[in-house]
């Protein structure tokens, strides 16, 4: 009963059997966590935009270039899929300064995630272009467009609609990967939460809030991806 009375005296501050979670503390750290979630979103959106740009560039190169460039790009795709994301992040983190590119953590994170996302972006774009009717390309060539014009004026604009659902899904995956950036001390959501845990030694509250924020963001994106897919199919 003593825990009961204690809980009544300090309603939200004691972690007794009455209230397991320290709601007050969770509310206190919420602004910090929301700001960090914003950083996570920022990094991920930038990375996805860049990786799509890189993906379009590499896909074009692959479709128009010779066998050698095709093999090179295939090797790149295999590399991004075959090496753990954490190792790729470490590679970017340590290798960029070696080549004289010194970026702050935020942009290092963006570059690393772009690298991770580009391999998948290539696959998404290739899949969308291949799903288009063959007649589109043939008639464009027959009308006298060059291969490059065909791609950019005819095929990519049509593929763009089909890219949207898998792209949203890809954004969700990149956000999950962005949590790994905490190991190179990018101040994103996981890093901030981890710092709070070891500053106050409060574990469960912070983890629940962290998971909750991720579920809202990623769950929302997965839902959006599904909704978009239904619309494009209809």
């Amino acid at each position, binding site marked *: 009963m003593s825990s009961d009375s204690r809980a009544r005296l300090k309603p939200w501050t004691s972690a007794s059997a009455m209230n397991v979670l320290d709601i007050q503390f969770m509310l206190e750290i919420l602004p910090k966590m929301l700001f960090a979630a914003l950083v996570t979103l920022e990094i991920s959106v930038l990375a996805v935009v860049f990786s799509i740009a890189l993906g379009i560039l590499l896909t074009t190169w692959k479709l128009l270039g010779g066998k050698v460039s095709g093999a090179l790009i295939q090797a790149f795709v*295999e*590399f991004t*899929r*075959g*090496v*753990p*994301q*954490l*190792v790729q992040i*470490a*590679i970017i983190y*340590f*290798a960029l300064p*070696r080549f004289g590119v010194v970026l702050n953590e935020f942009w290092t994170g963006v570059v690393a995630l772009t690298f991770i996302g580009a391999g998948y972006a290539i696959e998404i774009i290739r899949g969308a272009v291949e799903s288009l009717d063959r007649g589109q390309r043939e008639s464009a060539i027959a009308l006298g467009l060059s291969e490059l014009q065909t791609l950019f004026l005819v095929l990519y604009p049509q593929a763009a609609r089909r890219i949207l659902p898998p792209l949203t899904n890809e954004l969700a*995956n990149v*956000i*999950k*990967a*962005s*949590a*790994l950036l*905490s*190991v190179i001390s990018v101040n994103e959501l*996981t890093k901030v939460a*981890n710092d709070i*845990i070891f500053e106050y030694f409060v*574990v*469960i509250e912070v*983890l629940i809030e*962290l*998971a909750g924020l*991720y*579920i809202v963001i*990623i*769950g929302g994106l*997965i839902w959006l991806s599904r909704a978009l897919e239904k619309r494009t199919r209809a």
Partner: protein
Amino acid sequence: MLDALPRLLPAFWVTIEVSAISLALAMLLGLSCGTARAFLAKRNPLTWLMDAYVGLVRCTPIIVQIYAAYLLLPKIGMRLDVFWIGVIALTFNSAGYQIEIARAAVQSISKGQTEAATSLGLGWWHTIRLVVLPQAFKRMIPAVTNEMSHLVKASAVLSVISLFELHKAATALQATSFKFVELLAVQAMLYLPLILGVSRIARYLETDVFGFEGKTETVDIR
């Protein structure tokens, strides 16, 4: 780089071990729960529970799940070795995805199959075991092997809870030798054949052992 190799190989073995044990456990859990989930009614507490679990796993990053296992398991009185915490975290993660794989595969088998089996006088157990599962397994194989390579990649994240697997071992060597890029290259060269090898085996299983004629409908949930 060559000097580092013998010191990295035991750690590489830990990577393989932790991934393999987690895979086996997650398959057991995921495939059985997923099959059950496919047959449960929509309004069933078990369905809600499993859907919530799958949602939780799919919507949180693996590193958060690993931190959670590392920080929460001792709180509920389980003092385990980091290796086993890693196994639990990876199993927790992978089982969530595999429930979804199994559910999607089983539900993709046409309803006529179960109806035909029932009308032939098979009980529910025989219907599932003899008719539905053999067909569903075939569709699961690509997704499950995909999951295998995901697990190996996820095991690198276990370095954050200082499990001495390949990535952690290489990081430790980096700290003493300052050969950052070289050690990263060695890591890539060890991971790449393992993960690509897994997907090669997968393709072999798909085409040669289980004999997919052309392209069969498969499930993909990532």
